[in-house]
């Protein structure tokens, strides 16, 4: 036990969901006749759920700050519909259309942020209004008809990395390169950290846990690289997955390593104390809501890219999937608690459940029931753990 803690860190509890995720993957792989852990299925899993995970990134911050955003699905639908119409009816190039979608997300976020931060209307109400406004907006501007998007956008929702270089690797070389890069960066970070480890406390860490950590991560990333890279030629780690990974790194940094991130946790943990510590609470609320809606627009772009058309019902009930991911990831309803990585694990648990049950031919009805139970169980387990800690 002592050794495991040295490798993984003091708080092993945070790995509960990771273990659950791995267990689910194994169970489904066996139950579905080894159809779960295949290149194509993992690729599907990522490109089919990237939009929910992107939403969950923003939703995490909204929930940490003690609010909720019910409008994300509608904003995603609205932004992508405007994008589709811009591209199709005004014949503007696809990159302009993307900028338009992001701008719409920004405006929607500013709108909601304004009501929350300046007028003090709770996020629940503000975004419930937003949900109706933007959903109505989608149907209005589209006349309830789906609008196809330029084929370039497909790359964002369903594209793959390019093929190049030698064939003897047996893999998509772009994916291979990414995997190798990721491993290299991880090793450098770990070694640097190790080198500094004695500076403050005067006690140098032992080296072997660092080594074990490096080996573990290398194996995991290496395996993932193999899985994603060795599919049918032409396929690779999906583009939406790549966008997601970049966003995860970015938001991990924002939440952990910037003042703004700290402020989000401070406001969610104790608003009065945060205010008396010099945190601009209103600004923090505003930026969090703004950010959420921009991410909603990104999610909309990814989804529409995959669907090749923007539809009037796009985004319906996406907010619920995003919220569920955040809570399965261990965030607290009262705010102040939650991390980007745990949220992603939570989202993947939902995604794997969905995917595995589908592979087994379980209907949407029962899948829904099972997902509901998993959400309850995960949160109940979390609450139980926290109580026992006292």
């Amino acid at each position, binding site marked *: 036990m002592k050794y495991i803690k040295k490798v993984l860190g003091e708080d092993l509890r945070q790995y509960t969901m990771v273990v659950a995720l791995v267990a689910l993957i194994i169970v489904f792989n066996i139950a579905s006749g080894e159809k779960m852990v295949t290149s194509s299925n993992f690729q599907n899993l990522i490109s089919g759920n990237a939009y929910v995970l992107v939403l969950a990134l923003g939703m995490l911050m909204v929930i940490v700050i003690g609010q909720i955003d019910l409008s994300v699905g509608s904003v995603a639908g609205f932004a992508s519909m405007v994008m589709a119409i811009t591209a199709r009816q005004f014949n503007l190039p696809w990159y302009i259309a993307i900028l338009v979608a992001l701008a719409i997300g920004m405006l929607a976020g500013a709108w909601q942020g304004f009501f929350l931060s300046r007028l003090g209307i709770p996020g629940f109400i503000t975004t419930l209004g937003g949900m109706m406004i933007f959903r109505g907006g989608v149907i209005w501007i589209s006349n309830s008809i789906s609008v196809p998007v330029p084929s370039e956008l497909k790359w964002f929702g369903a594209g793959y990395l390019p093929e190049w270089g030698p064939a003897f690797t047996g893999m998509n070389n772009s994916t291979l390169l990414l995997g190798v890069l990721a491993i290299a960066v991880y090793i450098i970070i770990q070694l640097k950290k190790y080198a500094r480890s004695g500076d403050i406390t005067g006690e140098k860490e032992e080296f072997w846990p660092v080594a074990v950590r490096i080996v573990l991560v290398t194996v995991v990333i290496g395996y993932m690289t193999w899985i994603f890279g060795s599919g049918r030629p032409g396929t690779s780690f999906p583009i939406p997955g790549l966008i997601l990974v970049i966003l995860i790194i970015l938001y991990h940094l924002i939440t952990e390593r910037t003042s703004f991130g700290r402020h989000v946790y401070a406001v969610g943990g104790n608003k009065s104390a945060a205010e008396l510590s010099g945190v601009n609470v209103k600004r923090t609320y505003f930026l969090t809501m703004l950010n959420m809606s921009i991410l909603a627009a990104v999610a909309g772009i990814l989804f529409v890219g995959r669907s090749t058309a923007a539809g009037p019902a*796009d985004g319906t009930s996406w907010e619920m999937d995003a919220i569920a991911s955040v809570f399965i990831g261990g965030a607290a309803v009262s705010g102040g608690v939650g991390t980007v990585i745990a949220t992603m694990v939570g989202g993947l648990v939902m995604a794997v459940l969905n995917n595995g049950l589908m592979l087994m031919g379980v*209907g949407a009805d029962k899948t829904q029931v099972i997902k509901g139970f998993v959400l309850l169980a995960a949160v109940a387990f979390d609450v139980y753990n926290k109580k026992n800690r006292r």
Partner: protein
Amino acid sequence: MKAKKIVSMLMTVAVAVSVLTGCGGGRTAEPTSVADTAKTAETEKTDSKPTGNSSESNASEGNSSKGGVVGVALPWLGTQNWAEAEVMFKEQLEAAGYETIIQAADQKVPQQQQQIESMIENGANVIVVGPVDGTQLGSVLEKAKDAGVYVIGYDRLLENTTGVDGIVQFGSVKTGELQAQALLQGLEELKGEAPYNIELFGGGPADPNAPNFFKGAMTVLQPLIDDGTLVVVSGQTEFTQCATADWDNSKAQSRMDAILAGNYSDIEIDGVLSPNDGIARAIITSCENAGQPIPVVSGLDAENESVKWVWSGKQYSTVAKPTNALVAKTVSIIDSLLAGNGMPETDVTANNGVIDVPVYELPPVVVTKDNAKEVFADDPDRMALLTE
């Protein structure tokens, strides 16, 4: 506590081992036959596909006798026709000896996308798609194409994608023509000499069939409007004016209320073109409320309630699109595909925005009081409605 940790650690190791020993993909290993046919399928797209070997290798995975895996993705099971379709597909496909995967998407596009992907993963050779939204499955269907899977659209056009091999549906233009003809027949039968005062209704604009219904109907009606036999009193003859958003009955009823109030204060309405039964009943109700004599109204779908109304004379006609005929046609195409004979011949095609898709059209059947007993002879449920 300690035990739990150990279990979790063991699990992690187990995964690492199980995955490393290669249940994963691999360009050399090619564990799924689906991937096998991918490249060839692309090059031989125009010819009939080499489905023989892929269906065989899949058959060894499943335990079906005849071989072949068929996926059926339905939008939902919330209306009579889709619920019937689910049952019929299951019966007929299993009777034919195929391994069958049927999933309904609860009207959610992302759900349906993932269901189709999981069918590909499960080694489906043919996937029948009744889309939630025919335009939003583009990349997923192309993935199916790349994996060498045949895609057949069921009841609705699959637009905006190259990944579709054929569509089975009732001819929607034809349906419109039949509706218009039934309307004319009713007017002559019940409303005396021309000219006749009529109004026009269309379906939900999101459904690609709706404009086609309207177009079909107008090919019959337009000449008569032009020569004055028919008078559209409100003047609303464009599809965009007549459309009913979301096929919503209550919206149709409000539109009818408004038209009657605005144009029919001193004249009588003789007939209404209605795109389906729900809207037909809404129109009739509106006329009753306005104190108008019941006009001749067309319909579609042979819903139970409207079958009763046709039998009692309240609604002049409906058009039946028997689900079992549609399913039977689809299954016959599947039979041809899995026997290695490719897609059957057809001369009808429809442009889906990217390619011309072969269309297999079935003729719908007009139902009036006169022929109801004949049409539903094989349908005990609907026959039961005709007794009152």
